[in-house]
């Protein structure tokens, strides 16, 4: 699609440090973690791009090991992720959509899964609030500068991040304790993320 190729050219001209490819009719921009906030701000504010809507924000966990064979880059043309095999990665994808120009594309950033940390996008789109809490809840990615980074779907006192690949589907001890006194949220000693 030419519109996507045009967008791809714009991204690479503005951010030479990014990689971009079109697959399955979708444009994906791979941004390094240190400039991802700039890329997102550019996607929102550049006149020719102007993505008013952050449609989706989600994560995918790629644990350490040989993922590339399974991802079949040779047969599908879908490129492998950028981390080395001895380090696991969490890929966070922002799907941004422009209503004015009627286009959407994905901005992907890969972070190390041992201490994943990204700048928040809540200053650009308020809707990132709940999405980032969800990614924190499920993958443990800390979004620095987020106003209220607590668990959102799992219980507040849950241990572990369930959507990581090393987290099993079943057989997890459920830490519900019906007799336990549960203090109010500001006194639970939840993990604060302060940069």
């Amino acid at each position, binding site marked *: 699609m030419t519109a996507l190729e045009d967008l791809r050219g714009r991204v690479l001209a503005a951010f030479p440090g990014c990689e971009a490819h079109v*697959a*399955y*009719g*979708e444009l*994906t921009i791979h941004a390094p973690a240190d400039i991802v906030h700039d890329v997102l701000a550019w996607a929102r504010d550049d006149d020719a791009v102007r993505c*008013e*809507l*952050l*449609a*989706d924000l*989600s*994560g*995918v*966990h790629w644990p350490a090991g040989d*993922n590339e064979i*399974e*991802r*079949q*880059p040779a*047969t*599908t043309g*879908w490129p492998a992720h950028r981390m080395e095999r001895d380090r696991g990665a969490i890929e966070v*994808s922002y*799907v941004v959509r422009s*209503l004015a120009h*009627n286009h*959407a594309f*994905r901005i992907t950033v890969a972070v190390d899964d041992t201490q994943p940390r990204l700048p928040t996008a809540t200053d650009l*789109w*308020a*809707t990132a*609030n*709940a*999405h980032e809490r969800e990614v924190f809840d499920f993958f443990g990615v800390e979004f620095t500068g987020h106003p209220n980074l607590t*668990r*959102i*779907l*799992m*219980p507040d006192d849950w241990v572990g991040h*369930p*959507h990581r690949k090393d987290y099993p*589907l079943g057989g997890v001890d459920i830490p519900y304790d019906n007799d336990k006194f549960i203090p*109010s949220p500001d006194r639970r000693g939840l993990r604060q993320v302060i940069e």
Partner: protein
Amino acid sequence: MASDTELFVEGADWETVSDAVTDDILTVNMGPQHPSTHGVLRLVLQLDGEVVQRVDPVIGYLHTGIEKNAEYRTWVQGTTFFTRMDYLSPFFNECAYSLGVERLLDIEAPERAQAIRVILMEFNRIASHLVWIATGGMELGAVSLMTYGFREREHILDLFESQTGLRMNHAYIRPGGVAMDVTDDFAERCLALCDLLGDKLGEYEDLLLENPIWNGRLRGVGMITVSDCLRYGITGPLLRSSGMEWDLRKAQPYCGYEQYDFDVPTDDAGDCFSRFLVRMEEMRQSMRIIRQAVDRLPGGPTMVADKRIAWPSQQSLGPDGIGNDPAYIQHIMGESMESLINHFKLVTQGFTVPAGQVYEAVESPRGELGYAITSIGTNRPYRVHVREPSFVNLQATNHMCAGGLIADVVAVVASIDPVMGGVDR
């Protein structure tokens, strides 16, 4: 800020509370078990008298880990999970997921299957809006609407049951097409149902449009502008009622929506009443689409021809509403060992999907419903993330409620129309 004193009120000891409160701000819990919270939504309200200062929605009470579960099931089994997320719009979940998988597989469902999808999705949109008007009306005191809305929805569910075997959670739309062909009287039933619903919608409008209580409770309540909608990621009827004509069926057509002639209703007030108007008009437009789709329902297969992917859909209906085609059973059991093997592998092991990542979005009754699907080339999804419109839209509760009265919180939550199965997934 709220007082530091924590109080536990058990029974009629309200005086202990009123004596202990030193400032005027009271933090009150509403839900999760509250008749007006559409399930298990919990709202933490900070109140100054009757005026709401702040609302914090607390969610997660219905979290069932569907996304995680789907990583351990085959691609076809995925439909049976995702249809249970937003239980008021199951066809949209199935369709968005199937479209995503089809894009990864580089296949397209046959035209007949696409038209059936459109008809069922539009009926589903009407059914979902009917539940909205029924529950929303009841919460505002119009109790008779509750029975009316559910009464009409029942007719739509009867149609779904006759075609898919189930009233809800159908798993009828599958990657590659639909699970089985529609019955011979499908077109007739659809048109009869449209006639019935058209009359009933007029009745609701007669009841409500000039009703002083309905107007008083909804007009000027829960206002939001287009720019705030976009900031909070709000799509669907809420965005359209603020004045933005945005509908994925028009902007990014899927399932052949570009062939149908329909309007995108908008309103510019941005309050709860304009959401009512927009949803009523949307139901009429859905019927327009259904009539056109039924008129030109194409013939042909309802599942792709590729036998490696196609779920055996050539089954005839038995007296119990579902059953196996005798010719097909004869073929796999008596004639072709290879067909039996293929059938067995397809049902147990499923097909593999090429590696890649897609984001497929459809216009659900609540807004943009997106499926971010990641495959690594196996017979199971590597990761599926659902962009649920209810989950996103709920974030604006505070924006719409703050500064209003506590009674308006009920009207605002009803107008957002969240489905907790979708919010918590």
